[in-house]
């Protein structure tokens, strides 16, 4: 069925120039009369549809897709980038993943950015090779300054107890985007994601944010607490912290904009060490600056990827 419908030329009727012109004008270039009813039923996979290459938003399902290597670009571990654990009194400025020479490695979405319409679907994936470090006390013991995060454990054969870390620490990786311009100097957290820079109600001096505002967050354990000589579930001495060593960390995120928005770039940022917290019945990620412990707790990283895909919305 064609939208520019025209009556057929029937035998016995008077042919006029206007009538003949009308048979074709509806299809003329510039008429904008050709709509889905002309073509889609038979042609959505045929060459009549314009090639989407270079034409923003012309893909049948996929509008745009792009990926970039983030970090140093090296697979081997010889020259990692190091991120210090936060030791201040409020909240850290997150570290944007960079190439080792101080140059951030965001995913640029081009000079015009990606224009997302309400209902479109933005999917983002990232990964990064990281190594949480804990260099205090060469034996790999837990950080000495654990308060108030320790838990008491019974010591085998003794009425005494000892304190071990509760294992609820994490380095946090999350996503920021720039929806201002393509200079990529105005990154803010993606929707449903916080920079964890809010004072936590009810806990003096605690900063972070609610767990539901960590939609793009990947937590990485900074160490593994264990006991070298446990006996029947009870430890015999202090707990030890096992270095995590190099590992792949990955995260993902999706967003369905409710209004039109143009995104110019995305980046992965890092901060730590955070700790789980509950206040007023709400779960939080809360910064734990005391475990920075003189710079002995830090995170190294090398290379990874950041991928973004924009789909046409389904109505």
């Amino acid at each position: 069925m064609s939208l520019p419908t025209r009556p057929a030329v029937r035998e016995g009727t008077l042919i006029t120039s206007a009538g003949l012109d009308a048979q074709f004008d509806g299809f003329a270039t510039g008429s904008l009369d050709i709509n889905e009813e002309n073509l889609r039923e038979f042609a959505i996979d045929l060459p009549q549809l314009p090639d989407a290459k270079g034409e923003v938003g012309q893909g049948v399902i996929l509008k745009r897709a792009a990926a970039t290597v983030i970090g140093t670009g090296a697979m081997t571990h010889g020259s990692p980038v190091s991120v210090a654990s936060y030791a201040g009194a409020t909240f850290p400025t997150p570290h944007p993943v960079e190439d080792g020479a101080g140059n951030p490695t965001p995913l640029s979405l081009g000079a015009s950015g990606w224009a997302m319409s309400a209902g479109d679907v933005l999917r983002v994936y990232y990964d990064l090779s990281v190594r949480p470090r804990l260099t205090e006390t060469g034996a790999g013991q837990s950080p000495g300054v654990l308060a108030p995060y320790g838990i008491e454990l019974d010591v085998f054969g003794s009425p005494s107890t000892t304190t071990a870390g509760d294992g609820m620490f994490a380095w946090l990786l999350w996503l920021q985007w720039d929806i201002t311009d393509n200079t990529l100097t105005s990154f803010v957290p993606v929707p449903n994601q916080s920079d964890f820079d809010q004072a936590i109600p009810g806990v003096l001096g605690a900063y972070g944010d609610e767990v539901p505002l960590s939609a793009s967050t990947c937590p990485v354990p900074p160490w593994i607490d264990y006991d070298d000589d446990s006996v029947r579930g009870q430890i015999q001495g202090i707990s030890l912290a096992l270095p995590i060593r190099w590992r792949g960390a990955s995260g993902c995120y999706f967003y369905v904009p409710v209004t039109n928005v143009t995104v110019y770039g995305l980046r992965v940022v890092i901060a730590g060490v955070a700790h789980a917290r509950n206040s007023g019945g709400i779960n939080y990620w809360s910064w734990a600056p005391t475990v920075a412990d003189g710079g002995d707790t830090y995170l190294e990283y090398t290379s990874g990827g950041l991928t973004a895909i924009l789909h046409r919305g389904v109505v």
Partner: protein
Amino acid sequence: MPFTPSAFAPSTILTAADLQGNVDDLRVYLHQGVAAGDLDTGQWIENRHIQPPRIDPVRGLQNGVSGWQGGQTSDGPNARLSFMTSFFTGGGKEDVIPDEWAPVPNASFTLRLRRESKVLLHWSAEIANGPDDLSTTSGYNYDEDDRYVFLAPYIGNLSTPQMTRAQETRNALAFKSAVPYGTARPYVLGGYGNREGVFLYPSAQDDFASVGSVTIGLCYYARSDRAVCARWSVAVEAWGV
């Protein structure tokens, strides 16, 4: 080619050539490329217009009007274990950029692309690496603590692993090394890793995979003598553009 129909002026002779000319031009226009600017900018495609996919059960894939999708997994009641070893990847040679990679069995796809496309590989794997406590020989193998196993996507063949996208899992050592071992060697902590990633091909937003066959999958580079892929999954999406 734009379509500009010839106008018929009043009081002129109507010729078959003029009439047929318009019809021919219209036919060419509709069958050889409608100008993008002539298309209505409203919603075109609804669910009912998507062609039902054709299933390829051998590869676990389906292809439809917009591209390919599907995947494979080792999960289920009879998990398939895929072993990885440094003996297939250069013996874990020390201090060299890895140049020998081996495929993770059953973790690749070959797609026949009918239009230029974007191809996205998803992968995940549960890795149990080691324990490999063979003595270290300089120039032959790595120290125990550096006996990682790397997983990386590849495109085309194993000469092009995406090493910048590799993810590693450590060797299951560094726990207690003397009896009684007991829980001092909890493999689920030391050498275990659940890794996952995606790989977009081509990565630049204005580049597209060419029409033809493309192979995309998962490969490994092991520095330890044994590692196992306990469970894994691979999936692929490809969109024509």
